[in-house]
């Protein structure tokens, strides 16, 4: 007869078996996530579960800053008020001219029969924390699909583009910074309108596929070109910091520094998705397959 050990000696499967099972599970998850993007449901569910914990991590900082606000003295508030007043005066002139220019621009655009640039909506969000993973550049903001966030929305601060919403959870969303390795952004040189594509490179951006003899100099400002239909055109993104031209390669090596404080601010602006793209051109009618006879005729010519 088979004798079983008493249940208090039962320790479950052997450690090595357990380890192999969980290692295989992890590899399966990684492949699913990396190749097929199939683990998003699990991710969303877990994100909802750990949301209170993430809130809790931010709580002490928020409390500290609110206490600091409370005790910030009247004099500093007055000083700030003074500074802001002078800034408003400085800005007033710009605003006045801006209105006139906007009107003029609208008129010119109508004249040109161009599609009017619709002022896109935007919502303010706060950075909850930045990811700890040293391999990617991501931040988490406190607005999610409950607040109407959509995957793909551009995120800016007051100086320029900082990234794009790449994953939306019910209460929060993940923003991939433009310096992330997998993040690409279409750009345009302000000085001469040259278009290019920038890829993240850790702390900087890498302008790829630009011909070695292209007219790009140190200090050139790069703005979004808007041809992708995701980023509105004209937002400042980066400044060229180094140009290397090597005759051995077809493309120049160009490094740019992001203009926006991708690692600095606490509040960011999430722009509404302006998805009013012109419809794709209709498919060309398939050209009749040339008969071998025609090809031969061509050859003879």
């Amino acid at each position, binding site marked *: 007869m088979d004798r079983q050990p008493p249940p208090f000696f039962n*320790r479950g499967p052997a*450690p*090595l078996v*357990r*380890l192999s099972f*969980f*290692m295989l*599970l*992890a*590899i*399966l*998850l*990684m492949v*699913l*996530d*990396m190749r097929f993007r199939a*683990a998003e449901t*699990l*991710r969303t569910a*877990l*994100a909802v579960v*750990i949301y209170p*914990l*993430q809130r*809790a*991590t931010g709580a002490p900082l928020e409390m500290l800053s609110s206490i600091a606000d409370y005790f910030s003295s009247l004099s500093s508030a007055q000083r700030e008020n003074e500074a802001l007043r002078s800034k408003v005066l400085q800005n007033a002139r710009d605003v006045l001219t801006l209105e006139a220019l906007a009107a003029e621009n609208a008129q010119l655009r109508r004249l040109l029969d161009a599609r009017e640039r619709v002022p896109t909506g935007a919502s303010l969000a706060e950075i909850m*924390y*930045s*990811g*700890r*993973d*040293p*391999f*990617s550049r*991501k931040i*988490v903001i406190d607005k999610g699909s409950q607040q109407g966030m959509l995957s793909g929305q551009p995120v800016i601060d007051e100086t320029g583009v900082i990234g794009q919403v790449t*994953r939306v959870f019910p209460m929060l969303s*993940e923003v991939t910074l433009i310096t992330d*390795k997998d993040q690409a952004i279409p750009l345009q040189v302000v000085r001469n309108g040259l278009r290019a594509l920038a890829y993240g*490179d*850790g702390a900087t951006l890498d302008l790829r596929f630009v011909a070695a003899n292209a007219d790009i100099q140190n200090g050139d400002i790069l703005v979004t070109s808007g041809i992708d239909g995701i980023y509105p055109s004209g937002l400042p993104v980066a400044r060229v910091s180094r140009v290397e031209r090597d005759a051995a390669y077809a493309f120049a090596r160009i490094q740019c520094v992001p203009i926006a404080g991708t*690692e600095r601010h606490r509040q960011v602006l999430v722009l509404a998705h302006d998805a009013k793209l012109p419809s794709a051109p209709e498919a060309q009618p398939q050209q009749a397959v040339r008969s071998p006879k025609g090809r031969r005729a061509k050859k003879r010519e």
Partner: protein
Amino acid sequence: MQYEPRPQRILLPVSPLFMGLTLACALTFNLLPWRNVSGMPDLLALVLAFWGVHQPRRVSVGIAFAFGIVMDVANGALLGQHAFAYAVLAFAANALSRRLLWFPAWPQAMHMLFVLLGSQLLMLAVRMFSGSPFPGVLYFLGSFISAALWPVATMLLLAPQRRSESIDENRPI
């Protein structure tokens, strides 16, 4: 070098609630915005390894895996990256548990340094395989700091299990 076996105190049984609380605290610490400070120790890995050594029957590969998944989701990392590393870490801690407690605190920390470095190396290998750039040598600094924190962790995490020292001459044990 040989170590004399030290007299070991008999500890009170551990409270699972306390274990859960310390793991949650370590996870919360890891969620703080540390990205701009390179070489921050991964406290969750340290606490998991600690309980893996001291309570190998309670904290084993499965729990470490679950915490790893939570870390992946919270950081927006590749799903399974931390889980993989933590599972191997917990396995190594469980395997070392019978040997390690014979040593004094600093040799224990030296053992753990290699275990923690190994789990970091695994994570690096996984990310390099998926096409990420090398994050710099400072990335490994975290393990050294974690290992240096091992004696502190021993002091803090075992504190509720120690009983007060009452010397009784007449007690047989």
